[in-house]
């Protein structure tokens, strides 16, 4: 009897241990999968984005742009972005283009249609506002996963809770940021930035949709998100429509030729 009890105990112990082990992937795995989900789904993609910027006085401004994105290689590193502005009226036709590099500064260009000028833009602090919104350049193109130390704080039913601390704290304005990552899909549902213990900046995914890719692939995509920043005041909402993946973009689209003459088949 005693032997039976002990064996039962041992088996239960082992089962519990193995069940726990199956649940939690390594920190690196979580980080990689989340990074891939957020920035590298599909070979390429396009979306029409409506950006609503609310300032601290409650006044709103709207920007609308079409963003084309292409991965170069399959190591979740190099990317190309082409952002064509539809609204507001005085920015219509302006194009912003980025060649994202990992490990060195991105290359950026701005095209002004009235002057037919292609301007190469100096690499600014990645944490400055993207076109006047609360999103930084880094939020749009992705923060390198090697720039932070990652720690799996907790794993709940629904979320991996990841805490990230910058390796170079002088280069950023936060002390750390915490991500709530949806376990089955690796979508970061919420990100909170804190400084000296106070959360001052939050990004939250408000809507997720299934978008089809090639070969019957289905990509979970955040189609509405909001970013609140207490340092700046106010918030910015992004709404994505006409999202498509694997549309066959080629590297030559992300060149000067298409700044002066936009690829109309992709820009609505």
């Amino acid at each position: 009897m005693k032997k039976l009890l002990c064996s039962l105990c041992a088996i239960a112990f082992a089962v519990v241990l193995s069940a726990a082990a199956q649940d939690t992937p390594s920190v690196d795995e979580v980080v990689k999968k989340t990074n891939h989900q957020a920035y590298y789904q599909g070979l390429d993609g396009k979306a029409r984005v409506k950006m609503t910027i609310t300032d601290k006085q409650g006044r709103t401004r709207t920007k609308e742009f079409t963003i084309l994105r292409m991965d170069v290689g399959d190591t979740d590193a190099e990317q190309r972005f082409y952002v064509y502005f539809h609204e507001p009226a005085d920015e219509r036709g302006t194009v912003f283009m980025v060649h994202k590099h990992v490990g060195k500064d991105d290359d950026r260009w701005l095209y002004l249609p009235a002057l037919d000028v292609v301007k190469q833009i100096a690499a600014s602090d990645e944490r400055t506002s993207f076109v006047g919104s609360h999103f930084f350049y880094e939020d749009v193109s992705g923060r390198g996963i090697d720039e932070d130390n990652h720690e799996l704080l907790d794993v709940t039913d629904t979320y991996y809770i990841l805490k990230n601390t910058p390796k170079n704290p002088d280069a950023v304005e936060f002390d750390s940021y915490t991500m709530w990552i949806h376990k089955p899909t690796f979508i970061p549902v919420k990100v909170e930035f804190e400084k000296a213990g106070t959360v001052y900046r939050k990004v939250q995914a408000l809507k997720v949709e299934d978008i089809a890719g090639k070969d019957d692939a289905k990509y979970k995509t955040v189609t509405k998100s909001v970013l609140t920043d207490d340092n700046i005041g106010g918030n910015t909402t992004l709404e994505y429509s006409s999202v498509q993946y694997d549309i066959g973009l080629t590297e030559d689209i992300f060149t000067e030729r298409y700044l002066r003459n936009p690829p109309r088949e992709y820009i609505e």
Partner: protein
Amino acid sequence: MGGRTSDNASALAEPSGSGPRRLENNTVVLANNTVVLALALVALCTLFLPNIATADEPALPPGLAEEEATPALPEGLGDETTPSLPEGLGDDTGPALPPGLAEESAAATDTAEPEKQPKLRPPDWLHGFWEVRGGLRTQDDPAQPRDAILGETRLQLKTEKTWNDIVLEGTADFIGDGVLEEGDFDLRRLRLTWRPLDNLDIRLGRQVLTWGTGDMLFINDLFPKDWQSFFIGRDVEYLKAPSDAVKVGWFNDIANLELVYTPQFEHDRFISGERISYWNPLFRNFAGRDSQVHYNAPSTWFEDDEWALRVYRNIGSYQLALYGYSGYWKSPGGQKLVRPARGLMQATFPKLNVYGASLRGMVGKGIANIEIGYYDSRQDPGGDNLFVNNSEFRVLVGYEREIAKEFTAAVQYYLEHMMDYDAYGNGLLARYMATRDKDRHVFTLRLTKLLMNQNLTLSLFTYYSPSDGDAYLRPHAKYKVNDHWTVEAGGNVFMGESDASFFGQFRNNTNVYAGMRYAF
């Protein structure tokens, strides 16, 4: 009371059937041990299974909630080990949704309806702006009848039409000019874009063209400029005048080639005295509205034409370009004596070829560029014709970087080196007319600061020539009031000791201006 409770408590503390276990009572022992075992198991589970959710866990957005995949727990552990989410955080099937985000209405939110619709809306295919702008000289200019240098209302209309792979775009300005007291029409763009082959782009018609790496300084950009608009406070877009030309672009991996053919020579909209007085070196006085420049420009179609070429490619992260131009000096590059009835002197545009190159790319945290050009004044190869510009060598070096949050600075050094300077200085009228140095040095500084969520732009662009002893400052502020309205104000400040230097000669035309624009 107290005693009774404590008795009960002590009774509960000890397993039923208090007293040492008796081996002969196996059932009791088993029951006892099972309880202990169960307790131990639960304790173990709490240790190794994930912790209970914390109070500030975010609610799942619609689109993820139904995907809740509970990890397959092995048999025997069942559901009692899955901690339930605390109330208010939303359970697996229906998190507390923000208003208006219900899952069923997800499709409806795709059609983005604008929140605010202006009552009067132009049709979708028509865009443009309406603006009012005024500028005043800050001092008297004896050669100009009025103090107002700018006073206009402008309506710009733009539209485009696409058929398969051909695009037609048009932009036209309708101007009511209060200074010259006239209505005006400026067709800014009427161009057809066609891609006959994958790597060939053709653009035909009226269009603004720009290339080269300089900022407000041009070496290899020989496309027409509108200096008058630039100096009186019109939007900087008007610095470039449109050309009637055909542009062919051939793009491939080795090098990209752009060729522009302008069938009829298009000179700059240069300073003629219409609004801004200029220095007349022959008469040694400021000439203005009453003695506007008489000029004679080559104008025969397909004979007096211009060719411009640019070949470029990326080398690493730098862009290298080579340029060629065959045409004429764009601003009057020469003078001709004519009969006194026509004012004695007539400006001419002698033949010009330009050969150049540029390199631009990231250096450190900023963008650096270098550009060179050789101006071959074909009608004065030896430099001894005083009435025709000498050949020149021009070089430009620039650097731009962000120096503080949302604050960018850019500097440039520019040199115009006159070839055959000795010949220039030795001519008959040389001592009377010769006013230019062999080397003209110009420095520029651009400071730009963005404020208020990038809705307010403050900038200062300064030209300074130590060799000419003159300067030109362009302070400017622009504020985006909302998605449609923009207001701006600025100045054009000319300084210089000499009446004859390039910027100094305009010092009576220092002005301030303001404008507001509604864009749709």
